[in-house]
């Protein structure tokens, strides 16, 4: 086991613990902070997997923008009122069963599958220039569509949440 592998298992373990924090923490702000932690760990995993650019994007967008956005949203919507009782007492047990079933089945499938049927892994670092050229040549169309998605999201967010003037 080399250094990269050690780092990978460490990051993974922390990511999983933080993820559990995200979904289990009673205090919603802690949950959000745990989520940011998970994202940072995942960025680390990306880095180990030779996806440097993605690791950077992950840090910038998630740990930076999305994390802040979420915490900002939580602050705005936090009334401090105690939550009302659940309408469905079975919600958590069902969620637990469903999630465990998923992890066990998909995990077993992942472990039992021979992924590399005749494929020799390349495991080479992709230079950002290659990535960029691929993005703007081969994937120019999804890129354009993604820009439309962002445009729609932006306009939508404005339409839905802007405060109106009195005569509006």
């Amino acid at each position, binding site marked *: 086991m080399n250094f990269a592998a050690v780092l990978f298992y460490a990051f993974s373990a922390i990511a999983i613990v933080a993820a559990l924090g995200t979904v289990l923490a009673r205090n919603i702000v802690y949950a959000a902070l745990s989520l940011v932690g998970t*994202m940072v760990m995942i960025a680390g995993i990306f880095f180990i*997997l030779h996806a440097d650019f993605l690791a950077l994007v992950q840090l910038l967008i998630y740990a930076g923008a999305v994390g802040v956005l979420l915490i900002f949203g939580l602050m705005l919507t936090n009334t401090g009122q105690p939550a009302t009782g659940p309408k469905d007492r079975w919600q958590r047990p069902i969620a637990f069963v469903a999630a465990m079933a998923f992890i066990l089945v998909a*995990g077993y499938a992942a472990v039992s599958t021979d992924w590399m049927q005749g494929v020799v892994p390349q495991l080479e670092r992709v230079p950002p220039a290659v990535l960029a050229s691929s993005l703007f040549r081969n994937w120019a169309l999804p890129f354009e569509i993604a820009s439309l998605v962002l445009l729609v*999201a932006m306009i*939508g967010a404005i339409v839905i949440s802007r405060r109106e003037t009195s005569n509006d």
Partner: protein
Amino acid sequence: MIEAIPLDHVVLVATTLFGIGLYGVLSRRNAVAILMAIELMLNAVNINFIAFSMYVSPDPTVGQIIAVFVITVAAAEVALGLAIVLQIFRNKSNINVDDLDLLRW
């Protein structure tokens, strides 16, 4: 140097994170917390894409490109989701999905 990490271990981590996110969506009652759990799921998917891209795909860029798009969409989803949740909060002073049951049956 990553030869020491078997692909199935990476997939296992992604699956576990995805499952945890799934649990979050199914068990959380705060709308923002549910959005957070969905982010978790999407990130797990990204780990998968990058790992597969590295290990099995003939073109190592594909998975990374997909991950870029997924991150984009996920961020936009959070922004739009928060806008809607905020609007609900303004109307109801509450973002508990238990109370989103005007529409049912």
